[in-house]
């Protein structure tokens, strides 16, 4: 549980947005295990944007430069095949996607589309890199979480498509 970052008598000086954001990020599987202080630093680097239903966050083949975290709404991850496109996963609040952009410079491997009115947090790759360079703890925890997600994806039997669900643990990396 996250304690109040400032003493109670300084509650008037507290930024409610920031107080809300850090605990929210800690509930995301990608950021599990990060200490409160580091999570608070990381949370200041996010942009927040409102999306409308049907809006495409990114398309398969787009250059990947950022990680997204769903704050509100539902995001559908789809991939195109010669037989047509299929849904890889459906993500809800707390789920992160586009995390491969933090690791490599390859184009996006799937398309992300907002299904219901939503808000997303956006973390740019260079901001993430700067934090990792400045703090080995962030690097270790994040890489462990990313590896865990990749391992889950690699162990899935071939041909199994994940059904809709709030957890991104079943989603393939993007």
């Amino acid at each position, binding site marked *: 549980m996250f304690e109040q*970052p*400032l003493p109670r008598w300084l509650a008037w*000086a*507290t*930024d409610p947005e*920031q*107080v809300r954001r*850090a605990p929210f990020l800690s509930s995301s599987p990608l950021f599990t295990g990060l200490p409160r*202080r580091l999570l*608070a*630093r990381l*949370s*200041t680097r996010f*942009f*927040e*944007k*409102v*999306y409308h239903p*049907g*809006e*495409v*966050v*990114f*398309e*398969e*083949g*787009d*250059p*990947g*430069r*950022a990680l997204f975290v769903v704050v509100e709404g539902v995001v*559908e991850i*789809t*991939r*195109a095949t010669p037989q*047509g*496109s299929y849904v890889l996963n459906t993500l809800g609040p707390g789920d992160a996607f586009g995390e491969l952009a933090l690791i490599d410079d390859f*184009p996006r491997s799937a*398309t992300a*589309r907002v299904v219901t009115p939503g808000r997303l947090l*956006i973390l*740019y*790759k*260079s*901001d993430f890199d*700067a934090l990792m360079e400045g703090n080995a703890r962030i690097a270790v925890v994040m890489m462990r979480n990313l590896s865990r997600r990749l391992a889950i994806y690699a162990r899935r039997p071939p041909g199994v498509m994940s059904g809709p669900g709030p957890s991104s643990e079943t989603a393939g990396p993007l």
Partner: protein
Amino acid sequence: MKAGRLLAWGGVVALAWLARGLLLPVFLAAALAYLLSPAVAWADALAIRRSVAVGALFAVIIGVLVVVSFLLGPGMVAETAALVDRLPALARQIDVGLNAAVRELAETAPALRRLLPEGGDWVQRFVLNRGPGEPADLFEHVGHLFLLVILVPFFAFFLLRDMHRLIALAMDRLPPQHVETSVAVWRELNGVIGRYIRGLVLDGLVVGALAALGLWAARVPYPLLLGAFAGLANVVPFVGPLLSAAAAGLVVVLTPGQGLAGVGRVVMLFLVIKVLDDTIIQPFTIGRSVHLHPALLLGSVVVGNHALGVLGMIIAVPAATVLQETVRLLLEHRRVLARRDLRGRPGRLAA
């Protein structure tokens, strides 16, 4: 719709033209905001409201300035007063020296006589006629300075407090397909400019302190004043270090008892500072924030000088870096999209 948009843009351009006098205060305020932004980011991580954090930061800065002016102020004021008192005599001395040099040159090379200027009170006219002639001019100069002192912290306060909201608003208005590249461009540029400005100020402080200490050790008069000038001039690439060395050299030439050995000491001191700056100080302060080819760097400074004078020379390097980074990111974006289109665009899923 299109006409309305054009009209709105025309209004913005007209407003910008009318407010062009605010360019310098806004530029200085932005530089101050970049300088202080790490402290605000630190406060953000502690979940302190921006207005409280920026207010507290400004209170601390005012306190530090008061303490520093108590410590260094009397020495600086005394040196400035002594220099102003000696200025007419110094100007006369320089004129005598220049006239003698011109006469000597004319005697050595009579062919040049027609090209050489007549002897005169060049420096005295230049230095002594610089002061504001009319009381109205004096008020104008003081008014400009006062406006800068008031406007720069005022704008910097609001930039630090509200810039993130403006950026968030702009991001919210962007079409989703441009968000990722826009965030990338903004973050890269923000990082480059911030690192460059903070590095430049830190570099100027170190160079100024080294120059002041070195000049004091070499018993050159006005070490504090010349050190402060060296630190300030250091923000102008190429020209700044030359100017500060020339100023110190001139003071040595005009100081009885210093002689050529004194000039040699000053030249050596500024040479050592320059080498230290290029090899040790700058890699630590400005570091990797600027990736410009030396020719491009020099070219940008020349263009900046032509466009905006000294201010142009100062902002030339970050402006060229920003331009280079923006072009790189946009070209990269285009290249990836072109590669995707070549492979065959995947089916668009969104309506």
